[in-house]
């Protein structure tokens, strides 16, 4: 098993998802891409990820709902989550960050460099490493 951190990018904007994956892969992450919230949830339930980079506005399940389910249904407490949003003042940033234990919320247009350095600076204690996480509850 490689040491590369596994990142799931949930982004319905195809071109943006692609460029995020491109950059994260170059930074040494193992990246999976989900085009909507439903797929992202399914992938999170099935695989083990260290980091979730999710858009706020997505068809089906939006970013907020996805994080909610991740924290409450899947009980993935150690998953680091970065949210991106094209919304501005409509979001209650601090409340959202605290409630869903988000690393941060990036407003579009955000800098790719900012995203990669943010992910690079995340501290992972030994038990946080994806491979060591105990099997999680899978949805039916």
């Amino acid at each position, binding site marked *: 098993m490689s040491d590369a951190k596994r990142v799931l990018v949930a982004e319905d*904007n195809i*071109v943006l998802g692609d*460029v995020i994956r491109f950059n994260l892969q170059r930074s040494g992450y193992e990246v999976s891409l989900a085009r909507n919230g439903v797929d992202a949830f399914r992938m999170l339930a099935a695989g083990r990820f260290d980091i979730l980079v999710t858009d706020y*506005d997505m*068809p089906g399940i939006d970013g907020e709902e996805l994080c909610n389910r991740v924290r409450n249904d899947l009980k993935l407490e150690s998953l680091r989550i970065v949210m991106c949003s*094209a919304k*501005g003042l409509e979001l209650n940033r601090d409340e959202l960050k605290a409630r869903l234990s988000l690393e941060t919320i990036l407003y*579009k*247009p955000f*800098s790719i460099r900012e995203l990669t350095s943010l992910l690079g600076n995340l501290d992972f204690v030994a038990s946080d490493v994806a491979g060591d996480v105990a099997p999680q509850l899978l949805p039916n």
Partner: protein
Amino acid sequence: MPLAQRHRSLTQRVSEQYLLFGLSGLFCFVTAAIYLSWHGSFLKLIPATVGIPLGLLLLGSFVLRRTSRWHENIEGQLNRFSSSPNHLVSELRPLPATNSFAAGWNQLLARGHEHSAWNGVERRLADAIHTQQAKRWESVFQQLTDGIAVCDPDGRIIQMNRSFATLLKRADSETFVGMDIQELLVEQVNDDSQQRICNLSSSHATQVIEIQRSTDPSHGVWRLSRIMQSGDGSNPTESIWTLRDVTQQKLAEKAREEFVFTATHELRTPLANIRAYSETLALASDIPFEQQQSFYNTINNEATRLARFVDELLNISQMEAGAITIQKHEVQLERLLSEIFDSQRPLANEKKQAFDFTVAPKLPKVMADKDKLAAALTNLVSNAIKYTPEGGKVNVCVDADNSRVLFMVEDSGIGISAEDLPKLCEKFFRSGDERVQSIVGTGLGLAFAQEVARLHGGNVSIRSQLNQGSCFTLELPNR
């Protein structure tokens, strides 16, 4: 003063006449008494001795009464006048005499009557004016579009105008008189607003709050204000409550807010892509050439999308101001259509849609505003691509006869429900359908297309079946 000299005073006349008769009576008595005593017949003729002076005195008092008759009359009248409650000049009577004294009194009375008559007229006029003013104020009060209620210090309604009653959905404002205004308002609004009404402090300052009938603002939003009226400058006596319906204003504000949110979202999305791709290209120098090319293309596409959105925003602002004008020139339809076709094909290809363009072999030349028409048609085509799932079909067909040119955009998309169909061309309208909500849009493209068609003397008609597809037809008159 010749008059004063000619007419001696009452005292003078009375004393002169009384003295004259009295002295002559006394003289007669003394003379008769001496004469009769001389002849020794005083006792015999005593009745005559007494009778003559007595007669003289009686005559004197008669003359005296005549002299003071009118004065007594006036004195009596003045006594009655001063003791009567109203002091009415009309109660005084003129003297039926012709002497200058009576004439003076009568003239005085006439002047007094005249004066009181004018006073009466003045009073009646003032009353009439006052009543009219009160009526005018009452009518103003009733016809104001804002609801107004006046309450006593306990908050009970003294008076309420029709608008207030109408806002409370009652026809008659009289039925509310005596009711507690706060209780009345609390019955009409949602929990949150009830709290706000109850929290109105007892401070004398004017307070303004916004209250809502239900959680949905479209059911009614009111602006309520309470103004305390200071009676004599010390304690507040009455309060004036005004109620204004601000529902439309609220809804417009909400629509504008939503539009700004949508617009910023629409601007941020292509900007995010442009920034991410350009940053990637700037940071990494070892990207293969083909990939670099595809990144540049993406940036270009996103910039185009952004430019289109900015155009749309400009069109909207013009449309909002009612300031869209068109400048008709002869337009080569084939060229215009192929430009639209070329710009939209990549979007259809991205979604793996069958994108077909059928143009009648010989199209007439039309007089139209090329840019506006292109924007309107682009809206129709890009909508069809947007709202048709991957692998669907979008078919654009342009046909003409002698009188008109038809641009038909047909798709196998998600379709429009019969309920949404009539509202589709309204500005900012977006269907509540989840599939529509998941696609970004302003709800203005169709409104713009409709407006452009209308300015050209044509129109946009829509046929659609939910989950089957839609057909939008833009019809332009030929010339």
